[in-house]
């Protein structure tokens, strides 16, 4: 016991704290004898008690160092940052109390403040010192996380920071979150908003492709109309699980365009083997209201409904280097498989099973090589044309042999 007491007072003296030995001994004794706490744990507990008593907080884990955002190059580091809050986004889960973009003179980065951290909220445009935050990485991009051991201190001076300013962009070029962009687009779809924070969301597109947009209620901007073209200025790009979107906030501007922007006329192409026909392919039922496919007769939006039959294929193509999800609509499916919707219904009725249609599709398509074209929406390529790859000719083989021989 004496030994433990000495150890503790030595550690306390290191921090210039003097505590009577009897006090240490009585706390230790209580823990060890009355509450059967192991000696090591008891020592730690008592030490922490007195440190806390005297206002010494210990970095819980590794010590952190002050860095610039551009110096963050790996996950799992504890760092201190002087930053300005450049943007705040709607957290996707309740586990996150705040998320957005922070920046300093060297760059900007996504941050996440966990709800469990119990930390006060950051304000847009204000500058702070963030202490003991952890760096993280997802798919090569870094972010910082504020957790229970982190601290937020407001800064008097303002940190010089700006979002990366990018000049007018095409939809297809958006490949990074946290950029300010201007787009000339047509609104192709408006979705029902499921959050009070969002005034409008849907799809916008230009000739290079389509992208999801979100207009915050707080942005206080006029509503966009479906089918109309606009010049949208000062949008911020965002990313979720590898998919990009743009957000319209308070600083964004909407200018109607006289011209009609053509959407996605530049169709994407993909050539490769069809390696999977996924669940939800074949004969399906759709909600008569929203056209979503039903799961066991239930629409995720409108509940139990009397569905209408449809034929479609959700498949995966693969060229040995990357995969491409594809969607094939009824007309193309009928042509490709040589089966009409009515025939498919008949088939399913006779077999008392919808899955026979999918099996038939599988047997006709899986393992074959196809070339497809169509617009890319989200992770899908919506198939407009699909053709079997040309049979290999002797000339093809000779050409490839020649290429391999000279390599």
């Amino acid at each position, binding site marked *: 016991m004496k030994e433990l007491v000495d150890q503790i007072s030595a550690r306390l003296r290191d921090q210039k704290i003097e505590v009577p030995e009897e006090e240490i001994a009585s706390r230790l004794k209580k823990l060890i004898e009355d509450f059967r706490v192991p000696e090591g744990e008891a020592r730690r507990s008592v030490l922490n008690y007195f440190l806390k008593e005297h206002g010494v907080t210990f970095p819980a884990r590794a010590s952190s160092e002050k860095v610039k955002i551009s110096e963050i190059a790996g996950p799992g580091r504890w760092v201190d940052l002087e930053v300005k809050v450049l943007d705040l986004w709607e957290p996707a889960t309740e586990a996150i109390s705040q998320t957005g973009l922070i920046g300093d003179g060297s760059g900007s980065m996504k941050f996440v403040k966990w709800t469990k951290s119990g930390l006060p909220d950051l304000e847009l445009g204000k500058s702070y010192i963030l202490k003991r935050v952890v760096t993280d990485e997802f798919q*090569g991009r870094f972010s910082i996380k504020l957790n229970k051991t982190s601290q937020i201190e407001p800064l008097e001076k303002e940190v010089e920071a700006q979002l990366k300013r990018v000049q007018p962009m095409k939809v297809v070029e958006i490949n990074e979150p946290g950029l300010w962009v201007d787009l000339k687009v047509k609104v192709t779809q408006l979705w029902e908003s499921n959050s009070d924070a969002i005034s409008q969301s849907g799809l916008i597109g230009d000739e290079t492709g389509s992208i999801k947009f979100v207009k915050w209620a707080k942005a206080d901007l006029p509503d966009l109309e479906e089918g109309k073209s606009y010049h949208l200025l000062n949008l911020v790009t965002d990313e979720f699980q590898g998919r990009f979107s743009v957000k319209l906030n308070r600083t964004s501007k909407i200018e109607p365009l006289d011209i009609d922007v053509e959407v996605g006329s530049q169709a994407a192409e993909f050539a490769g*083997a069809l390696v999977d026909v996924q669940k939800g392919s074949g004969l399906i039922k759709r909600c008569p209201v929203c056209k979503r496919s039903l799961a066991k007769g239930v629409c995720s939006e409108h509940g139990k409904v009397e569905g209408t039959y449809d034929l479609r294929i959700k498949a995966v193509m*693969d060229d040995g280097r990357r*995969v491409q999800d594809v969607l094939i609509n009824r007309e193309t499916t009928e042509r490709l498989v040589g089966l009409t919707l009515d025939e498919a219904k008949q088939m399913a009725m006779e077999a008392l099973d919808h899955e026979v249609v999918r099996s038939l599709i599988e047997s006709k398509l899986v*393992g074959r090589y196809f070339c497809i074209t169509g617009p890319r929406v989200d992770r899908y390529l919506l198939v407009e044309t699909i053709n079997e*790859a040309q049979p290999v*000719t002797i000339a093809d083989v000779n050409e490839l*042999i020649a290429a391999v021989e000279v*390599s």
Partner: protein
Amino acid sequence: MAGFSREVARRIFVEELKSANYSFRDGEDQHQYAPQYLLTPTGAKCNRVFMVGTLTEKDDIGGDTEYWRGRVVDPTGSILIYAGQYQPEAAQILANIEAPAFVAVVGKPNLYQTEDGNIIISVRAESIERVDEVTRNQWIMDTARRTQERLKVLRSTEPVSVSGDFSTADKAPASSPAQDAQRAMEHYHTDAEHYRQMVIRALASLRADLDLSLGHTKPESEPTTKPEAEIEPPVEVKEKAKPDAKKSRAKKSSTLSGLAEQDDTEEVEEVPIFKRPIDGGEGRGAAR
């Protein structure tokens, strides 16, 4: 965590696939659900493969439940594929196909080490479909191209020695082809020339096959580069290649069995009884 992204099905000739003996789990935390990869000598890091070849034999090696094993042949060799109760669709198709037949297989490569240290690579089929020779030819071209691409990367990484900062690069979750090549080089000391010759041999045998099928159809038709063209009215030829191709395959069944025999004699391979160990692997795979 990230949304799941599907693993690419790699194209690897059988000879190369069977030379692989380096398997590992990837991901920051090496937990049991981290995906399993097989790294091949030319640096294909594969969790999934796509192959098209000739099914030359099939057997139900299961006990109470069906467990199907098939042998698939490509121009460079043959490999065993498996489908059991956890791949019901693949198993059913394998059960109903009569060998020999052209098949397309999507599956997971499986590495098994015997007690005496031999390594056996097989493929656990996710799906098997009967295809035609046109598809098989396309696969050989496809696989030759992909292998050629890997060899190119492999050759360019050869002179690079292991540097001090390799460890940081290694932590990156998605490895680049160059890193895979580097890793393959370190493990296998791959002789790129050997695999280049393999690609050339595979293509030469494809050329011979095509020559042969041209010869067969000549007497019945106008000389044309596309042997299928005479079967259907010319207007539809471009739009619908498949029915034509099927007929051409039927015509060529003699060449097909010839090919299978030839490959079998070229490579007489003793397959040890690995019913039980593979069953074990099966169970683990299904749990994932």
